[in-house]
């Protein structure tokens, strides 16, 4: 299997009053189609690691490769392009744009990418919303939906550009068990059926256990790669 993401010797220091090293020489590799959970206590650096892997945080030492291409040291514009094309995000909070309809929210990353016509994007966005059972909410404003529905729309949005990697920061942290199950099943379907890679940070042990692999972190280091 191909490597979707590879980090080598990643170090990160917070320069806040005292220098605090939050990531200590972290190396990890995630294969295409894997469903990986990163777990650990609060403050162990797992979220920090996720944001480094996401290319949003560029203040680190070490090497990062996404789809076998090094992204370390690239310009912010290039990184934005890479995120747009190859990475989807799901956060604990949905972060939908409340002034837009759900459909538009899902369409925006694809419109940004600009590879398809807006007609095609719209059709695709509908398809994604249908996949998550929220197509009937498509034309409502995002802030009119329930929490579970909003999170599903947010996941649909993360998938619109068919990214190779989907990153989740506590994607189910704000959901009840019913919605958590829906989201988990969908994630599994994405890896098994569509070969997409999922990396999530989670506190939810059940959720983590059911994923393909668990990476355990403590004090800024990886304790177990879960192989």
């Amino acid at each position: 299997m191909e490597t979707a993401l590879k980090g080598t010797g990643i170090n990160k220091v917070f320069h806040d009053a005292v220098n605090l090293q939050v990531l200590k020489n972290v190396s990890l590799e995630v294969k295409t189609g894997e469903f990986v959970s990163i777990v650990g206590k609060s403050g162990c650096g797992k979220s920090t690691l996720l944001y480094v892997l996401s290319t949003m945080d560029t203040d680190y030492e070490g090497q990062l490769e996404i789809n076998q291409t090094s992204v370390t040291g690239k310009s912010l514009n290039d990184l934005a392009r890479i995120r747009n094309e190859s990475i989807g995000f799901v956060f604990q909070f949905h972060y939908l744009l409340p002034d837009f309809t759900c459909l538009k929210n899902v369409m925006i990353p694809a419109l940004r990418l600009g590879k398809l016509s807006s007609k095609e994007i719209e059709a695709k966005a509908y398809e994604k919303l249908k996949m998550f059972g929220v197509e009937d909410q498509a034309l409502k404003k995002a802030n009119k939906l329930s929490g579970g529905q909003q999170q599903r729309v947010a996941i649909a949005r993360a998938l619109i550009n068919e990214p190779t990697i989907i990153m989740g920061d506590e994607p189910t942290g704000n959901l009840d068990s019913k919605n958590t199950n829906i989201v988990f099943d969908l994630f599994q379907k994405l890896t098994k059926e569509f070969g997409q890679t999922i990396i999530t940070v989670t506190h939810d042990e059940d959720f983590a256990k059911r994923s393909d692999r668990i990476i355990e972190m403590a004090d800024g280091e990886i304790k177990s790669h879960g192989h």
Partner: protein
Amino acid sequence: MKISVNTEIAVTYLSARKKQTAVAALGVMFGISMFIFMQSLMKGTNDYFEKMSFNSTPHIRLYSENKVADAHMLTSYLQDPSVKILTNPKQLIQTQGLNNPYGLIREIERNPQITNVTPQVTADVIYTSGSVQINGNVAGVNIDQEDKMFDVQSNMLAGDLHDLNRVNNGLLIGKGVADKLSLHVGDNITVTSGTGSPTIMKVVGIFATTVKQVDDTKSYANIVQAQNLLGKDRSYVTDIKINLKDYNNAPAVARELETITGYKAEDWVKANEQLKAAFKIRAVILNSVIGVILLVAGFGIYNILNMTIYEKIKEIAILKAQGFSGQAVTSIFLQQAIYIGLIGGIVGIICGFGITLMVSRIYIGAGTLKYLPMSFYIPHYIEAICFGILTTVAAGYFPARKASRVDPVTIIRG
């Protein structure tokens, strides 16, 4: 037409907060409409005063200036190269007027910039009617040319100016002269100059300009009559009045004429320095008022965009997470500023035009000025739009840059 996603987001943000957008646009609108109104008023007023001054002043007046005696003159008179020192030199009287004036006129007419050239004989005179005497001056002119250059016809109260050509010893007198001497068209008046003999002339017309001093002293006669009044021959001309295609070139052409003819050429700018000063002062007042209005409008936009950015900081972070670059975010917020500017600008132009139109109908009725002079000058409207956009872009730039620098990690992680 393909609308970019940045534009779509910018427009959605604007339409989601219609009231604030309207308030910001209103600020720009006031700025723009005031800009247009004040520019129109200023240009209208300036044009009016310029036109007024050209009703009495030619673009260039060529005349022979009294000179102060100097040693050169003595040298050439005595034909003797020794060094001479003059103590207490005096003014020399130029009694001869311009030398070979008609030759000069033919010469001057060759200049392609010049549209009208007309000779004039100016005579200081005493008007006498019955036992009343008042001082004044007679301008001996070719009345047809004079009318072409200064639109004398528009100042006529009574009589016909063309009678100057038809009636022997005809005279057009100012309203003040007519009132003081109680004269009407067809009456006789005795005119005496310093050098000629008293002449009885016939009032063929009465005119009134906006300048009281002119109306109280001036009269027009045929140039030949004026020469007779002074007891001079037909080649005696005191002034040559010249109009140009573009009066802004007057100073340059005047200098040229001075070197060619050797006489003094006074351009209208010099003759109306106070007018120019007034133009400048008005321009300063106007520009500072407009500047303040646009500044306030700019702050309005700055404020509203800043507030939007604080409110939407999470959305900006998420857009960046999804792959919107800093430039894209800048574009989203700058576009909002530009649309506010455009809306305000367009409405402002319409309002500005409306205000200008309304004010131009206000009756003033002072002298020959019936209505407020307003100009409808297209470049003002273009300038206004440009200024409006410039202000909004400047005001929107800083908030937009701030938005583009939002660090998604800090915002999303909280």
